[in-house]
């Protein structure tokens, strides 16, 4: 199947996904389960990575800024910009595409190959709406919190790294954080996060839902979904940056 067909099928899938849930009570139950599965269970890895990558960004910046004419506060400024603009929304989304994307594809794909999706269809349930909509809502609503947390922890990690290494002082770092603060950059990061969250929920769902074959096909679909979600995140990152910042 060529790419155009996949794109068409993906949008047709979305058309089915965004229908009114058949049973509101059931939808909310699924939504809370998905928030736990796709959001809360990703907290640990995001917190861990954000803290250390924030530290590395600050250290790298400090090590490359060795001119006495450049104020140390620029380290905090550069770390803040890198973390808010790119690391938290994009890098964390790519990590989530790997972790959550493979989970979504394998869980939906397994339901497909074990006829659980057929069972839903026979019962008269819109399986796409039932399975995918809670995932989309969960990621779109929860990931901004996750990414905000990544921003805070990344910046904090930078401060800790500076203080522990002695490469810059905490005060310089905080001064840099306060320097030229533009609230729009947070908006920009949140817009990116929402788009990426949508991709992280829908692209792996597409790959899982239309899988054909057995367990090997599910494994291959998981890999494919992570690759495609990452590619799409990178492409959308470029276009969103061009649209919003230039």
């Amino acid at each position: 199947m060529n790419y155009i067909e996949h794109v068409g099928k993906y949008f047709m899938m979305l058309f089915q996904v965004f229908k009114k849930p058949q049973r509101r009570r059931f939808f909310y139950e699924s939504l809370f389960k998905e928030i736990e599965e796709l959001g809360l269970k990703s907290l640990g890895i995001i917190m861990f990575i954000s803290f250390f990558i924030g530290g590395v960004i600050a250290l790298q910046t400090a090590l490359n800024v060795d001119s006495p004419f450049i104020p140390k506060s620029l380290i905090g400024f550069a770390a803040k910009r890198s973390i808010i603009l790119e690391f938290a929304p994009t890098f964390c989304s790519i990590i989530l595409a790997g972790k959550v994307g493979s989970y979504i594809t394998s869980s939906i794909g397994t339901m497909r190959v074990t006829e659980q999706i057929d069972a839903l269809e026979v019962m008269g349930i819109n399986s796409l709406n039932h399975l995918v909509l809670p995932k989309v809502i969960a990621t779109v609503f929860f990931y901004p919190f996750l990414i905000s947390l990544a921003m805070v922890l990344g910046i904090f990690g930078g401060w800790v790294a500076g203080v522990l290494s002695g490469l810059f002082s905490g005060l310089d770092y905080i001064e840099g954080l306060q320097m030229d603060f533009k609230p729009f950059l947070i908006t920009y990061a949140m817009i990116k996060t929402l788009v990426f969250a949508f991709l992280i929920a829908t692209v792996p769902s597409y790959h899982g839902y239309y899988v054909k074959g057995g367990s090997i096909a599910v494994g291959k679909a998981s890999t494919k979904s992570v690759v495609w979600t990452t590619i799409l995140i990178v492409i959308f990152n470029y276009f969103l940056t061009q649209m919003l910042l230039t």
Partner: protein
Amino acid sequence: MIEVNNLHKGFGDVKILKGISTKFYPGKTSLIIGQSGSGKTVFLKSLIGLHTPEEGFISFDGRVNTNFTTEEKRQWRQEIGMVFQGSALFDSQTVEENVMFPLKMFTKKTNSEMLDRVNFVLKRVNLENANKKLPAELSGGMQKRVAIARAIVMNPKYLFCDEPNSGLDPQTAIVIDNLIQEITEEYNITTVINTHDMNSVMEIGEKILFLKNGLKAWEGSSEDIFKTDNEAVVDFVYSSNLFKKVREAYLNETK
């Protein structure tokens, strides 16, 4: 009653069903048999509406399923129970949640009413005290019984089973066969089973439909299958020495 009229179905250039016509009656257990690739699964999936016929129609008590409005289709879906080959139980849900699923989705019963109904059907399939177990904790036979319980929990008018005893030991397979037949008679359900199992054919086949190359090659009862001279049926059903001997014994007895 389910009436199938001149049913055609294919995928691309490959024609799978080439004009099948038959009827399935309430309170009777009907079996579809045939070699792998004969079109049994496509036929069954067409009956349950997972495939749309290219030509011909299927009517359910006079209602043609392809003519249904969205609401009629929703209503009709609730009249259908399906037991899948691999049970198709939702593996993240307990037995109780699996069986309760259609009730939660389509009825406005209270939790205690739903629980009463779930316990009733689980008792009917001889599966008590398994409510809180996950499908992975059950044997193949128990999973099949949960699947039957889920299929009948909404009081269906039509029950479809895709190889309900595949992968089961002969004793459990007979238990499942008998259970389906009992339920069919008890609730006057129109039951259609897709099977490879010749024991099922002999035991519960009140009506047997033999498919070959997408066509109806033979139709009759389990009594008729002993007497038939249809070469395709004889080759398929009596391919094992055991069944050949059973047939000979039956024919000698009825002479």
